[in-house]
């Protein structure tokens, strides 16, 4: 559904572009993503705030998996949402809003990694997390060390392979959705996924 047609079918969307009280905020919170995107595209910052609230975790996680450090991930998540706000009029509602946001997040990350190699989160932070584990600290530490190694190996993959692996493994996107997101073909996505898994296997073998 395009925004124009969405507005035509949802005349209330144009009416909720002004600041709102509690009741109106509750009404906004009850809206689905497409309706919120329509209202936000019509200028409602409150609607966009709710979109950010709903999707900030997933967008941050995409960025974290790409960059493997919190600082870059939070910068890129912010950047992705600002770009989303700017581009809301281009959201046609043909794909889920989350997919559209992932696409923006991935492209933001790809732009970033083309100028900067991903840093890695210090192992110390994961060791600290291990102290909080319910299970035995040593076992938890080993698991966290393994997780840090996998994250580091993923962060070292070539860009397209990394994007494919992240979207397929952690966001359950189909090959077709990934192809749409990355602007490639299903065949290329499958090839990238295959090479990503193979390279990950090699990288993990060399880990101590």
């Amino acid at each position, binding site marked *: 559904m395009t925004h124009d047609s969405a507005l035509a079918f949802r005349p209330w969307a144009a009416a909720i572009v002004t600041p709102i009280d509690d009741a109106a905020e509750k009404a906004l919170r009850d809206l689905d993503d497409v309706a919120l995107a329509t209202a936000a595209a019509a200028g409602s910052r409150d609607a966009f705030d709710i979109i950010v609230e709903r999707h*900030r975790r997933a967008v941050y996680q995409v960025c974290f998996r790409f960059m493997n450090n919190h600082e870059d991930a939070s910068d890129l*998540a912010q950047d992705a949402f600002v770009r989303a706000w700017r581009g809301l009029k281009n959201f046609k509602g043909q794909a889920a809003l989350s997919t559209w946001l992932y696409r923006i997040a991935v492209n933001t990350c790809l732009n970033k990694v083309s100028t900067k190699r991903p840093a890695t989160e210090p192992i110390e932070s994961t060791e600290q997390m291990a102290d909080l584990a319910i299970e035995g600290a040593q076992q938890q530490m080993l698991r966290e060390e393994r997780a840090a190694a996998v994250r580091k190996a*993923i962060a070292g993959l070539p860009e397209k392979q990394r994007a494919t692996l992240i979207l397929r493994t952690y966001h359950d996107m189909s090959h077709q959705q990934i192809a749409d997101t990355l602007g490639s073909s299903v065949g290329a996505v*499958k*090839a990238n996924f295959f090479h990503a*898994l193979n390279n*990950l296997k090699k990288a993990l073998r060399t880990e101590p």
Partner: protein
Amino acid sequence: MTHLTPDELIDAVDGVLAGERSAHLAACEECRAQLDDLSAVLNDARQVAVPEPSPLFWQHLSARVNEGIESEPAGAWPGWLRWQVLLPLGAAAMVILGLMMAVPKQDPRIASAAYEDAVVEPGPAADDNWGVVATLVGDLDLDTAAATGVIGPGVADRAVLALTAEEQLELTRLLQAELARAKS
């Protein structure tokens, strides 16, 4: 039968490998070992969660997004397309448009003959044409426009150079007619 291609191995990982190729997979130890390797590393990757940031981080992120939006330049115009560029361009376009509308559609030979006449005696058509231009431009003379920055230096020159030879001829005719009228 040939071994599974990378595409087919990914299909096998996804559990959607076509029947005939599934039969090969069942019979081929090499392909099965490859599939097991891929599945194992994928399973490893799936176990890895993103470290949870501080609970305060999410509010902080929302606030940062708002700050980012607030600091966006208003409107969707490209950064370089500012009023300092648009105003002179618009003014020049108005003048050119006014002149083009004012130019009577006639045979160039007649126009040339009219040019000769116009130097001596401006006709009523010239007055009408100037009327259109004057309405479009208003009371703003070139010096005032340049002084207030509405028209940048050289804009008028470039606007005249952008006219076709025929339009320049007509502009000359109109200017000379206006000069002649001012003298009388």
